[in-house]
C-alpha cells in the first residue's frame, strides 16, 4: 500500500512537472508581442487527476481478461459479416436514420473501403505502406480532371481512376521492392508527401492549394439527382414519380460506396485463395523461404501494391464525386496514418476488424463533432489505448487462409 501511494505521488509529481510549462503558462498574443499568462490551477488539476488515475489502476485488480472466443470462430465471423452487410443495406430505411446519419455512415464506409484496400498491402503482403493516401489522391484527381477536361461521366471515370491509381502503385512500388521492414514505411511516406507537394504546386493542372471545385455528381443510369435535371436527362425523383428530395442523392451515394466497399471485400476474400493471394501471405511470413520455393517477390509485391492502389483509386474518385471539391488538404499524411491505424487496430488481415476499427476511429469522433477541438486529441488517445489494450489488433487473424491438405 505504501509502495502504491509512493508510486501515485511520483506519478502526480511527474504530471505536475510536465504540465507546468505547457499548461501552467499560456502564450498570449497581443499587439506588443507575446506575453505569458499563468493558470496554475490546471497544473494542480492534472496532478490530482494523475494521482487518482494511478491509484485506481493500482487498486483495481488487473482488468478482467476477455472471455476466450468460441473455437468455431470462423463460422461466427462468417455470420457476423453477413449480419453487418444486411444491417448496412437496411440502414437508410431504418426509422432512426436521418440524412446526417447516412452521411456519416458514408464517411465511415469510405474509410472501411480504404482500410480493405490497404489491408491487401499491409495485412496480406506485409508491406508497411505509410503513403497510401497518395493513391487515394490520384484517384480523386484523376476523376476530377477527366470529368472536367473531357466531360466523361462518373461511371466511365471510375475504372479509369482505378487503373490510373494502379499504375501509380506499380511505379511507386518499384523503389520499395528492394527494401525491408520500416524502410518501406519511410519511403512510402516520402512518396506520399511528394505526390501531395506536387498537387499543391502544379498550379496549371491541379489548381494548386485551391483545388478543383464543381466536380460532376454521379447519376444513376442517366437519372440525375439534381433538383432541376439538365436538358435531355430525367430526374431520379421524376422518373420514379416521387417528390424531389435532396436525401435521394445522399442515400444513393451511400449505396454506391457500400457497393464499392463490398466489391473490395469480396475481391480480397477471393483473391486470398488464389495463388497470388497465398504468395502474399507466404511472403509476409518469410521472404527468404519464398524465394527458395520459386516465388518471385518482385511480381508478388508489385501486384499487392497495384491492387491496393486500385481500390484506393476507386475510393478516391468516389470521394471526389461526393464532396464535389478536392484540394491537397484532404490528402495529408495524417490520412495515411488514419488508414494504417484502422488496418492495424482492426487486427492485420481481418476484414471485420477493419470495419470495427473504422467505426471506432472515424465514426465515434464524427459523433462528437460538437467537441470538435478535442476530436483529434481523443482520436490519438484512442489509437494509443487500443494498442496498449490489444497490441495485435481488435480481431487478430494471422492464420494462413489455406493450409496444406486441409489439416486443422
Amino acid at each position, binding site marked *: 500500500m505504501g509502495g502504491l501511494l509512493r508510486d501515485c505521488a511520483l506519478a502526480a509529481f511527474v504530471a505536475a512537472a510536465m504540465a507546468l510549462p505547457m499548461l501552467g503558462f499560456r502564450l498570449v498574443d497581443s499587439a506588443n508581442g507575446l506575453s505569458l499568462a499563468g493558470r496554475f490551477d490546471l497544473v494542480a488539476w492534472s496532478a490530482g487527476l494523475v494521482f487518482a488515475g494511478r491509484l485506481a489502476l493500482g487498486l483495481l485488480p488487473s482488468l478482467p481478461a476477455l472471455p476466450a472466443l468460441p473455437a468455431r470462430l470462423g463460422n461466427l465471423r462468417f455470420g457476423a459479416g453477413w449480419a453487418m452487410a444486411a444491417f448496412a443495406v437496411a440502414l437508410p430505411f431504418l426509422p432512426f436514420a436521418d440524412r446526417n446519419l447516412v452521411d456519416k455512415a458514408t464517411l465511415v464506409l469510405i474509410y472501411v473501403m480504404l482500410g480493405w484496400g490497404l489491408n491487401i498491402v499491409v495485412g496480406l503482403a506485409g508491406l508497411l505502406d505509410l503513403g497510401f493516401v497518395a493513391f487515394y489522391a490520384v484517384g480523386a484527381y484523376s476523376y476530377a480532371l477527366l470529368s472536367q477536361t473531357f466531360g466523361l461521366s462518373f461511371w466511365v471515370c471510375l475504372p479509369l481512376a482505378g487503373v490510373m491509381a494502379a499504375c501509380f502503385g506499380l511505379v511507386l512500388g518499384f523503389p520499395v521492392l528492394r*527494401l525491408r521492414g520500416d524502410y518501406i514505411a519511410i519511403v512510402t511516406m516520402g512518396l506520399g508527401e511528394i505526390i501531395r507537394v506536387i498537387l499543391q504546386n502544379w498550379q496549371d493542372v491541379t489548381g494548386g492549394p485551391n483545388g478543383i471545385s464543381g466536380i460532376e455528381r454521379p447519376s444513376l443510369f442517366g437519372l440525375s439527382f439534381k433538383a432541376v435535371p439538365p436538358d435531355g436527362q430525367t430526374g431520379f425523383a421524376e422518373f420514379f414519380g416521387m417528390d424531389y428530395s435532396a436525401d435521394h442523392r445522399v442515400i444513393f451515394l451511400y449505396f454506391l460506396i457500400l457497393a464499392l466497399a463490398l466489391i473490395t471485400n469480396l475481391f480480397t476474400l477471393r483473391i486470398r485463395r488464389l495463388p497470388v493471394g497465398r504468395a502474399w501471405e507466404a511472403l509476409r511470413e518469410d521472404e527468404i523461404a519464398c524465394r527458395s520455393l520459386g516465388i518471385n517477390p518482385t511480381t508478388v509485391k508489385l501486384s499487392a501494391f497495384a491492387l491496393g492502389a486500385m481500390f484506393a483509386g476507386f475510393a478516391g474518385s468516389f470521394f471526389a464525386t461526393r464532396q464535389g471539391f478536392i484540394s491537397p488538404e484532404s490528402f495529408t499524411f495524417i490520412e495515411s496514418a488514419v488508414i494504417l491505424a484502422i488496418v492495424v487496430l482492426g487486427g492485420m488481415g481481418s476484414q471485420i476488424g477493419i470495419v470495427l476499427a473504422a467505426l471506432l476511429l472515424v465514426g465515434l469522433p464524427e459523433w462528437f463533432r460538437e467537441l470538435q477541438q478535442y476530436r483529434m486529441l481523443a*482520436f490519438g488517445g484512442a489509437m494509443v489505448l487500443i494498442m*496498449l489494450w490489444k497490441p495485435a489488433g481488435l480481431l487478430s487473424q494471422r492464420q494462413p487462409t489455406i493450409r496444406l491438405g486441409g489439416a486443422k
Partner: protein
Amino acid sequence: MEYFLQQLINGLTLGAIYGLIALGYTMVYSILGMINFAHGTIYMLGAFISLIAFLAATTIGGASVVVALLVALFSTMGFTALWGWTVERIAYRPLRAAPRLAPLISAIGVSIVLQNFTAQAQGARVKPLPPVIQGGFTLMEGDGFTVNLSWMQIIVMVMTLALMAGFTWMITKTSLGRAQRATEQDMKMAALLGIDVDRVISTTFVIGAALAGVAGLMVTLYYGVIDFYIGFLAGIKAFTAAVLGGIGSLPGAMLGGLLIGLIEAFWSGYFSIEYKDVATFGILIMVLVFRPTGLLGRPDVEKI
C-alpha cells in the same frame, strides 16, 4: 560564389538542427528497432517550452538575455527529457513484446495527441518571437552581395558541435554508453549480464528528447516563429537524415542532417523553394534504393 557561400552557411545551420533531432531517431532505432514517430513532436514541445521559459525568465523573472537563454536551455532540456521519458513509459514500454507494428501505431497516436494538446493548451496560431540575438557579427565578403554569418548561426553550430562532442564521449567512454552499445547489439544478452535494459532504454529516450529540445530552442531563436505543426515535417526530415547517414550510426546521423540541410538550402537557393521537400524525399529514396544501409551504416547481414 558569394551566393553559394551564403547558402552553404544557411544549409549548415539548418543541417545542424536536423542532425540533433536525427540523433534521437537513430539511437532509438538502433536499440529498439522502431521508428519513434513522436520524436518530431517532442522537438515541437521543446520549441514551445523554450519559448515559454524564455518569456518567463525575461518578463516575470526580469533576467538579462544571457541568463534567460541559459534558463531556457536547461529548463527545455529538463522538461522535454521528462516528456520523452513519460512517452516511453506509457506508450512504448508495455508494447515491447508486441507485434512490430504496434509501437509504430502507438507512436503515431502519441504524436497526434501531443500536437493537438499543444494546439489546445497554447493556441493553434503561429507564435512569433522578436529576434533575441540580433544579427550581425560579420559580413564575410562584399561584392554586390554580402555574406552574413549571424551570431545565431554561430551559436547553433557551436552548440551542436559541443553537444555532439559530449554525446560521443558519453557513448564511447562512460559505463552508461557501454551499456547502451551492449543493449543495441543484443538486448537479451545484455540483460543476462546484469544491464538494466529498461533503464538503458529510458535513458536513451531521455537523452534523445533533451537533444530534440535543444533543437527546438535553437529553431525558436533562429526562425522566431513556431506553431504546433512544425514537428511533423522536421521529424520526417530528421528521420530522412538518420537513414541517409546510416541508421544506428551516430556520426552518420549528424552527417545525414548536414547533408539534408545543405540539399534543402541549395535546392531552394538555386531551383525552387516549393519543391524543396520533394528534393529531400527524392534523395532519401535514391539512397535507400541504391545503398540501403545509408552512407555510414553497417551492412545488415541476415542469418537464416
